[in-house]
């Protein structure tokens, strides 16, 4: 009785709404539409064996197969790292469609082999840092076995991802903290990645990132002499007017539940880094890096 009067009409409504959502993503892919589809997929993937859900699941799987074959999922995967989970979920669902073949997965496999996707370093770095800081306070936090990871290589591979945002810088700040805590148990800091970000900041006129990256390269990661000289020259050209902080990074849109970075904090931290860099005495080349002995 309930099925006929309440459940069936509700499912019919969901069916038509979901169909509209799929059509929307088909015609004009957007971040919102993709995450909306992802939200639906998260529940439908758990409905195996429930006959009433079959229509919706079939519709989703067919759409997922279409997006996989057209390359849309690959494009989204490359656009933002946070899409990776839903792309993986939709790719999994697409496998149930007969027309999907292993060759349709070739690009996603390459991107995974190339360590470009689904490797968010921030959770790992966070756990390491939480453990390390609390340990220094006498609190032993056990996250279980974190496993050994070569952070040098994992983080350096980020250089292969197009389009930077605040996460890039955050990863380096966390890495530097780990190195400073001297608890990275044989891990080394990244080499190429900080230098490339510094070059990008200079070339893009990102005066907010510039002093942070210069400070990080100077104290932790190292950089070649000409890059150091060019960075200082760029910083000197971007000193804010008296009483002013440095501007926020251009196009900063990174606030999320995972990380909130407001303009005030970002302007303040970068101005501090700039002031310290300019205040540090001595020559700027060949500076002794603050690196743990294991390096």
């Amino acid at each position, binding site marked *: 009785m309930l099925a006929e009067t309440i459940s069936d009409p509700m499912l019919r409504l969901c069916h038509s709404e979901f169909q509209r959502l799929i059509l929307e993503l088909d015609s004009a892919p957007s971040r919102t539409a993709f995450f909306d589809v992802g939200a639906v997929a998260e529940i439908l993937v758990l409905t195996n064996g429930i006959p009433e859900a079959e229509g919706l699941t079939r519709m989703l799987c067919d759409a997922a197969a279409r997006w996989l074959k057209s390359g849309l999922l690959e494009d989204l995967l490359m656009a*933002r790292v946070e899409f990776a989970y839903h792309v993986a979920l939709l790719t999994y669902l697409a496998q149930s469609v007969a027309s999907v073949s292993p060759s349709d997965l070739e690009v996603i496999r390459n991107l995974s082999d190339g360590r470009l996707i689904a490797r968010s370093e921030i959770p790992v770095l966070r756990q390491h840092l939480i453990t390390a800081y609390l340990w220094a306070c006498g609190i032993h936090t056990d996250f279980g076995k974190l*496993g050994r990871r070569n952070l040098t290589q994992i983080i350096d591979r980020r250089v*292969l991802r197009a389009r930077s945002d605040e996460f890039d810088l955050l990863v380096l700040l966390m890495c530097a903290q780990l190195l400073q805590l001297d608890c990275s148990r044989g891990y080394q800091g990244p080499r*190429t990645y900080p230098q*490339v970000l510094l*070059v990008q900041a200079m070339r893009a006129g990102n005066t907010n990132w510039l002093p942070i990256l210069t400070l990080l390269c100077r104290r932790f990661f190292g950089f*070649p002499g*000409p890059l150091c000289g060019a960075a200082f020259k760029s910083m000197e050209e971007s000193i804010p007017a008296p009483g002013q902080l440095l501007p926020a990074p251009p196009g900063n849109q990174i606030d999320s539940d995972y990380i909130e970075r407001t303009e005030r904090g970002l302007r303040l931290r970068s101005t501090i880094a700039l002031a310290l860099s300019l205040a540090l005495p001595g020559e700027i080349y060949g500076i002794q890096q603050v690196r743990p002995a294991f390096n």
Partner: protein
Amino acid sequence: MVSNKSDRLSTEQIALTSKYLAEMTERFASPIAAVQPLFGRCCLATLPSSIPCWDTLTREVAWVAAGILSHPDPASLSLDPLPIIEIYTMIKGIDREVPEMRQILERVGPDLEAQPPEIRSTGRVRQIASTLSKLGFPNQVASPTKETKNLLNEKESWFSAPASKLSDLADHLIADDVPLDETDTKILSLIALGELRNYHLDIGCKLLRTVLQLGVPGEETRDGVDFIALQRRRDGRYGFLDRLAEKPEQTADPDTTLFLPMTLNAAWLFKTEAACVVMLPVLTTVGETA
């Protein structure tokens, strides 16, 4: 460890990308517009794993060259001589000759010399003149301007130089064929990587080619070539559309705005890498457990 350069593309992958480029040639159906896809296919044909297809390519090159020669006003075509010179060089490299190509190149030299000094001293023109000269086409290579000489010496300023100046700088470096030391190589490779991450592919690939040709390629160079290699799609094209961009980068035809230029850049870069005398360092195995 060194990389096995023949592994960059398999025989099947080369065939697939060549097929895509051949489709582009057919799509344009004009000998003039066919120059670039043809250049890309010639680049792929030089890779170690390619199946020899020079008979077909030579025939097509002759067809394209004849089309250019028979044009009533070739100057109006605004043809970039560099891909033509590169095609000629590749064909010559396998001991073949396409007389029509030679005729075109014989015309380029006098055209260059008729240009005003400020044009002749640009990197692009100097590179073309220098390459022609090496191929035996009599030509005089003009000197670079004082401003360019300063830029060549002030390496710190490379980091903030606009892409157009860097592009010119790379042309001058290749024109003069001066070996790059480790620092120069590192600087240019870092800039190339930064540009690639912003999807500025032309300048990124050009700097990498320069480094592979003249420098001591290192880890940063390898990362740059890896970046391009990872842009490969199932149909042999290269590039990923940013479908979520507020203003879509590719409005009308993504093949002409993204995929074709990127595929050509990839083919040219892999060819340069394969010819590079110094092997690129390869990534060591990651010791990682869950």
